[in-house]
């Protein structure tokens, strides 16, 4: 059961993500859920809309799973990302790692989530209580871009804002 879609437009299920992931040789299961917060940089948020280049995002997430599994020597890495409109508290991303021991499980999980956030073609638009919205400025994923942004590996405030 590793052939589930990595980009999904319905609520994410941790149980579904864990199906068939059990490993008798693993003593550690580490899980991350990124949930929608009600604020960002001090502004109250009502909901988010995620969009993606679904075909490319799916392929890239699978590649990142394999890369992190190899680099960290962990047998199980899985990620799924939600798209569409999400309410406060809903999960935008779920990531799971199983490993023999917890140290490598934690390290792999962090790397997995960071890689998906920084490299996969997904965009987050925040909607505020005042009726405006803005795309969260993100990471340039072009190797040869003319302008990769000031802080390509951290969120840095808001992008193009619209009433």
């Amino acid at each position, binding site marked *: 059961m590793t052939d589930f879609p990595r980009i999904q437009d319905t609520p994410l299920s941790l149980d579904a993500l864990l199906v068939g992931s059990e490993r008798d040789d693993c003593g550690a299961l580490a899980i991350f859920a990124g949930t929608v917060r009600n604020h960002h940089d001090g502004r109250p948020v009502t909901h988010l809309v995620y969009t*993606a280049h679904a075909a*490319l995002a799916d392929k890239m997430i699978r590649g990142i799973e394999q890369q992190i599994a190899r680099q960290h020597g962990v047998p199980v890495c899985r990620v799924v990302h939600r798209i569409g409109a999400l309410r406060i508290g809903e999960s935008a991303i779920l990531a799971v790692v199983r490993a023999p021991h917890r140290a490598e499980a934690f390290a792999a999980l962090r790397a997995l989530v960071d890689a998906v956030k920084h490299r996969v073609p*997904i*965009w*987050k638009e925040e909607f505020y209580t005042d009726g405006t919205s803005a795309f969260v400025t993100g*990471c340039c*994923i072009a190797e040869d*871009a003319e302008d990769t942004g000031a802080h390509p590996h951290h969120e840095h405030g808001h992008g*193009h804002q619209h009433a």
Partner: protein
Amino acid sequence: MEVRVQCFGPARRLAGDEWLSVQLDEPATVADALAALASRGDEFAALLKQCAVALGDEIVRRTHPLKSGDVVALLPPVAGG
């Protein structure tokens, strides 16, 4: 020749549309398509400098050649999670 452009994320918002098209002299590259798109305005031009471009499910470099009928995806800086 004509190349179709699919805009994602803030590029779609700035373009005002998901789909654009550009007319290019042959031979043309991704860089030529981006240069043609830059005429749509300063803000869009600035965003183009930070965009990756995909053909199908492959990100391609700015030197990648384009042919008539290609569909390129315009991928602004990403922010998943």
